[in-house]
């Protein structure tokens, strides 16, 4: 099942591992292959700081998708947008307008636990279901820059929790429809981004387990910023001695090589899902260059 044939990709991982960079790079690469891509982020508040926006020189994203580059749109998945869409679905138009004018209802939906997340889920579902006049999907592929580990798992666990509470009616139908996308390995994949360091690797392993527990199809783990080792064993021994004597510049790089190899080995030994390794690049502005984005895309596209 190639990357471009799935409808939705969820990108997650520990904070600081490059989730947004990987999401943005994949979106760019996929858009170059002629697909209409929607890149979505999940925020806690409207108009807040946008990590995706930074990659494309946009201050903030809106709940309504905006085109950032040809074929590449982005939006902010937002609870209130989902609430409004849902109300439109179940109520006559006039009643929706009345309901939306009610500040009391708005504040309630914002403050009550889990309602924001339900709205986010419904907003995402609406975008997945959006159709062009000819019946084709408005967005071929939706790539979601998910929150870090704990919050990501809370989100992926939500639909099933909802179904336990509500088994019939439009809400339950919407949840079932959503699950028919997100839990279907032909339509969805979740990717765990990590770094070749001790804590991110530990968390990636836990996250893969957690995703499988919530029945999310895990596409694989993306090991980001893996440094290349240019030294043969003799050179390594010589460097070892040199650095013990008196560290020079380059010592941190040299040390990191050893830790990275350990981390990669740990992943290889423990994972049952595919592992892709991305080389280290020195990108000061946090962007992934086109060549690397294409490389990652090629890896994922060629997978399976």
């Amino acid at each position, binding site marked *: 099942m190639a990357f471009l044939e799935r409808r939705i990709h969820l990108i997650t991982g*520990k*904070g*600081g591992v490059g989730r*947004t960079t990987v999401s943005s790079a994949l979106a760019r690469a996929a858009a170059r292959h002629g697909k209409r891509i929607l890149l979505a982020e999940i925020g*806690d508040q409207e108009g*807040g*700081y946008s990590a995706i926006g*930074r990659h494309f020189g946009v201050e903030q994203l809106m709940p309504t998708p905006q085109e950032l580059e040809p074929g590449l749109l982005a939006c902010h998945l937002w609870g209130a947008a989902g609430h409004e869409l849902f109300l439109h679905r179940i*109520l006559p138009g006039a*009643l929706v307008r009345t*309901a939306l004018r009610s*500040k*009391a*209802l708005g*504040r*309630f939906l*914002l*403050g*009550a*636990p*889990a309602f*924001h*997340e339900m709205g986010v889920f419904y907003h995402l579902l609406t975008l997945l279901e959006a159709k062009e006049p000819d019946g084709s999907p408005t967005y071929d592929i939706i790539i979601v820059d998910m929150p*870090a*580990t*704990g*919050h990501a*798992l*809370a989100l992926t666990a*939500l639909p099933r*929790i909802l179904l*336990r*509470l*509500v088994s019939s*009616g*439009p809400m*339950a139908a919407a949840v079932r429809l959503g699950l028919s996308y997100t839990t279907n390995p032909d339509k969805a994949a979740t990717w765990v981004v990590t770094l070749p*360091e*001790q*804590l*991110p690797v530990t*968390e990636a392993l836990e996250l893969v387990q957690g995703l499988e527990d919530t029945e999310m199809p895990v596409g694989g783990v993306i090991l980001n910023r893996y440094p290349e080792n*240019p*030294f043969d064993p*003799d*050179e390594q*021994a*010589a*460097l070892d001695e040199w650095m013990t004597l008196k*560290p*020079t*510049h*380059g*010592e*941190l*790089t040299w*040390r990191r090589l050893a830790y990275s190899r350990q981390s990669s080995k740990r992943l290889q030994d423990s994972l049952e899902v595919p592992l892709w390794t991305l080389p280290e690049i*020195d990108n000061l*502005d*946090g962007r992934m260059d086109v060549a690397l984005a294409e490389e990652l895309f090629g890896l994922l596209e060629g997978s399976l």
Partner: protein
Amino acid sequence: MKSTEAGQSSLLLEKRVLVCCGAGGVGKTTVSAGLAIAAARAGRRVLVVTIDPSRRLAETLGVKSNLSQPVSLPEESLTKAGITPPGSLFAWVLDPQIVSDGVVRRLISNPDDAESLLANRIYRNVTAMVAGMQEYAAIEALHGFVVNDAYDLVVLDTPPSRNALRFLDAPTRARSILDSRVLSLLVPEEGNLIRQFATRLFEEVLDLAFGRDARVDIQSFFKLFGRVLGHANKNQEAVQEYFRTKRVGFLLVTSPAREALSEAYYFEKKTREELGLNLCGYILNRSTSFALDRALPDPSSLPAQAPAELRRALAKLMGAAETERDTARRHAELAEELRGRKESVWVLPAMPTSPTDMAELGSLGDLLGALMSDPETKRTSTNLSAAHLPETGCSCP
């Protein structure tokens, strides 16, 4: 290292609550533990609390998560971290379900009502989710510590900054629910016909969305939960007010990565301008500015008899070494940039691995204690002598 004198190290010795905020992956949890250890080593009774759903702190400190109250660290851990009486250290990894159950039992005076809320399907499922509830629970727990004066200092590790803002907003959001007439729609006053009519309409909408059975559950959930919030709300307002006093300090933890910094700047603006909180400064973590005055591994500077493999290795390393030199410069400039924002800045060196045992955390605590007690170290990057830090970390610019 200079002695820890009162007045100089006011953050560690005088604050009652220290809140560590910052983007994901910058080392907040480790820094929180380090700060707590530093204060405990200085003789205070300290509690470190994490509401981080990844539960990393519990693992590092060697305590269990999911406990219903803070636990003292085992004697052995304290010794390893160099904490001796009167200093002591407690840790608590908040489990939202347990904290929340405790809150319900405490705030609903009628035990039957309390148990019926605890058994409610909505309550059981919603509380288990991290979202929202955890913040309510954390605020509630903090209130208890503040009221009871149980600790000299509480160090609070928070979820990544955008969520930390949610945490701070929790009282406002709780009030929103209470203010909202929606609650009174769910639970109409008897005898008020207009209310009853409105409630009937609202129920029909809920029936449409969720089905009747679920609606009845939702109604009974909010009826009981509204009462909890009513009490909790009073506490939360008290906590929020307390958070604005000088006794509480906010620290922004950041790595030198641009994205982490952007979030930190955003948070700085939020905390100070919008929330009126007492921001105490930046902890710039993972800086390599300590390597600023190192030499380049230039193979041409090697003596003629140096082995060929060393010559080859250094030649291969030169590119990375030059990048490292530039990075060290950039990190040093960054510390100046932060100081330019008129903030205190404490710089922690990049370490090859995160501290994973108490001895290593103790060294970090030692370092933080030294940095914070010495006004000079704020200006001059790092002043390291901690044993476990890489020897590379010992040079002072």
